[in-house]
């Protein structure tokens, strides 16, 4: 049937088959990508100094041990718990108002980024491409970078924290919203347009209802992410749990550090559990109550849980607005406009001297290497833990149950603690350089990727694996033949997505001293060398776009 593709060859005389056995053709593209990826990982490990010795710093082992011991004796004194409570409120307030603003920006911006709203023809394509390119700028910069930039314009104002989340998140949300709307089938809307409905009303009746579930689910997801971003912004001074964590860290109060870590974990769990509950409900709504005909005609039923959730989020946003004392007038004030024009005037044109470009290229290479090492380690770790960390279909034995619970808790701690904090911890026992930064990023990414991989394994239909166990296959055989081949695509796609995120995050780790473009940017901002900062930002955005492109191509091959 497919003889054109598979060249038949004669079977050796010893072969049992009498007809021509087909020849195995491997996918060249996949092998090329796999070998390329291995080469890049090896190059990055070498660049991180792993093979050059002198990476460990044994002198810090005792401090590290003291830090680790703090895990079992967190500071739970009344005073500190109250401090943590207030800090958590600040973090939540930043996250809620930032995410709400981002969703608003996303909703308003989505039509500008949707291919269909630009019309057909070359000019429509050009307009759309330009809009997409423009959006890469706010997307490509980490929240912390936006925080530092906004600090220069707004000074110490709560708007800094809110906008630092809202600007990059708004850009991403607009892109995703546009993509979700594009995926809705065209037919129903065209029918309405043909019947004389306006562009707006036809979208309201034919586009929004079809995409509403996905849009709301994505908005929930953004809120979860915003909690983590708010913590990171705290690290660079915006207040809240992140700020408390960095205070406790710099004063070497390990018990307090661990209390902060546990508080962060609780906050993350709360956000994820609430978000997941809403998303599950959207994906699988409960049936309408029975017996409605008996009570005289159909009535409109709203899902109480969803209505309550929407009301709660609205109340949360209103409260955050009040709690942070956000004043819209502050954004349009005379002083802000002066500062902004001053900043722009000082920042333009960017510096393009030879030595600077050389060092920027070197820093970009470091950033890439840091992110590659981080994602490679995280992927390896995620593959190893995904099996045991996945919730089994049947009631597990005691050993398996405890191991799984411990692994899930460990992954939660890894992703609740921001990567820069892991970098500081690793600096106890590692010499400074990009390796501690890469490892820190790797630990954090492992927390995320491990959970995603475990979920990918949980979602697999258990029956093929059971069928193999039924014919006598051991755990390894079952894993190789029934679990790995089906989960590999999803796990690799997640890993590639996380690589894009890791490039952005490596800038954050760099801002706090781990090298790469982040370190260059931090120096430029501290010395008020604005032209250099502009050049660095341009390189950063270009690098992020390049990584997005490579990652998208690789995902297409994996699929």
């Amino acid at each position, binding site marked *: 049937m497919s003889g054109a593709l598979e060249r038949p060859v004669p079977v050796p005389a010893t072969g049992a*088959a009498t007809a021509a056995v087909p020849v195995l053709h491997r996918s060249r593209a996949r092998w090329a990508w796999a070998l390329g990826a291995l080469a890049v990982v090896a190059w990055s490990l070498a660049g991180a100094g792993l093979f050059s010795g002198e990476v460990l710093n044994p002198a810090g082992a005792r401090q590290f041990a003291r830090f680790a011991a703090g895990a079992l004796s967190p500071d739970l004194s009344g005073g500190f718990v109250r401090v943590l409570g207030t800090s958590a409120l600040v973090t939540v307030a930043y996250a809620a108002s930032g995410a709400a603003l981002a969703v608003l920006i996303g909703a308003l911006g989505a039509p500008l980024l949707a291919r269909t709203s630009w019309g057909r023809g070359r000019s429509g394509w050009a307009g759309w491409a330009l809009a997409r390119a423009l959006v890469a700028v706010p997307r490509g910069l980490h929240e912390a970078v936006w925080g530092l930039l906004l600090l220069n314009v707004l000074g110490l104002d709560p708007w800094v924290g809110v906008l630092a989340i809202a600007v990059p998140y708004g850009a991403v949300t607009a892109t995703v919203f546009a993509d979700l709307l594009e995926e809705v089938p065209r037919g129903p809307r065209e029918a309405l347009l043909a019947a004389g409905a306006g562009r707006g009303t036809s979208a309201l009746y034919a586009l929004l209802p079809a995409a509403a579930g996905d849009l709301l689910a994505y908005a929930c997801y953004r809120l979860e992410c915003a909690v983590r971003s708010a913590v990171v912004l705290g690290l660079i001074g915006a207040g809240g749990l992140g700020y408390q964590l960095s205070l406790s860290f710099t004063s070497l109060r390990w018990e307090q550090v661990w209390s902060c870590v546990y508080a962060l974990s609780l906050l993350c769990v709360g956000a994820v559990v609430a978000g997941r509950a809403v998303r599950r409900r959207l994906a699988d709504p409960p049936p309408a109550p029975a017996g409605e005909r008996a009570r005289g005609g159909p009535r409109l039923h709203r899902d109480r849980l969803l209505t309550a959730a929407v009301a709660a989020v609205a109340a949360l946003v209103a409260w955050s607005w009040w709690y942070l004392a956000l004043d819209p007038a502050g954004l349009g004030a005379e002083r802000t406009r002066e500062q902004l024009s001053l900043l722009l005037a000082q920042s333009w044109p960017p510096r393009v001297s030879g030595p600077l470009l050389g060092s920027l290229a070197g820093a970009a290479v470091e950033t890439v290497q840091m992110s590659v090492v981080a994602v490679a380690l995280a992927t390896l770790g995620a593959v190893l833990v995904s099996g045991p960390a996945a919730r089994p279909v049947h009631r597990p034995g005691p050993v398996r149950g405890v191991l799984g619970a411990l692994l899930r808790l460990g992954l939660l701690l890894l992703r609740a603690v921001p990567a820069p904090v892991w970098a500081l911890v690793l600096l106890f026992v590692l010499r400074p350089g990009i390796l501690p930064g890469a490892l820190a990023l790797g630990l954090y990414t492992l927390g995320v990727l491990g959970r995603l991989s475990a979920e990918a394994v949980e979602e697999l239909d258990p029956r093929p694996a*059971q069928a193999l166990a039924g014919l006598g296959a051991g755990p390894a*055989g079952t894993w190789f033949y029934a679990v790995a081949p089906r989960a590999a695509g999803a796990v690799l796609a997640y890993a590639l997505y996380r690589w894009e995120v890791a490039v952005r995050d490596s800038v954050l780790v760099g801002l706090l001293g781990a090298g790469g473009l982040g370190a260059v940017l931090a120096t430029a901002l501290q010395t008020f060398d604005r032209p250099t900062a502009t050049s660095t930002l341009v390189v950063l955005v270009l690098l992020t776009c390049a990584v997005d492109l490579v990652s998208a191509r690789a995902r297409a091959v994996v699929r």
Partner: protein
Amino acid sequence: MGAAVRLEGVRVSFGATRALDGVDLHVATGERIALLGPSGAGKSTLLNVLNGSVTPSAGSVQVLGADPAALPGRAARRLRARVGTVHQHLELVGALRVVHNVNAGRLGSWPAWRAALSLLRPQGVAQVAAALEQVDLLERMYERTERLSGGQRQRVAIARVLVQRPELVLADEPASALDPALAGRALALLSGLAAERGGSLLACLHDPALALAHCTRVLGLVEGRIALDAPAARLTPADLADFYGVRR
């Protein structure tokens, strides 16, 4: 000849529904048995009890001389490797090439390293090719399984059992997606496989004609009980009409 299967008073419940309700069954080595009955009669459950994936709530089970539920890990694996199943929903891995899905039949005897190596460089290709040729699917050997049609996948599942070479072959509607000619061949292959190793076959079938043509004994299951048990040679159309009448 020894007994391949010995069930006594086997009951299986899923929640409130009772899938098997006191089944006694002796299968001598070498017997080829067709299981008939309406859907929901407990045919699949009976096969799942025999391959050890369902443990009954009451009664005793002996498969090839051992109780699958009572054996410790390694011995249970060895027993399972001697029982081959063509599942109703096939349970193949679509993302794997056909050759690997067939080779999965040997996971009960292969060490882990060989199983892993085979994914990179297929092992035992000659046997896989022979099995695939028997089910007329040789040219699809290196195709991704998800690209195959339903009937082709069913034949991959049969090829998997062919390379497993079990002593007890269990087949749950192994010919449901095949045209009549192929269905007859599939049944002939499975009963030949059982005969070749001096083993036995139990196959759930919808088509009484297939059952009479390829099996030595016919069992009819209704609501978890055996309602018909007769040698195929002595079964008359009237018996079958009777049996199918009972369930209506």
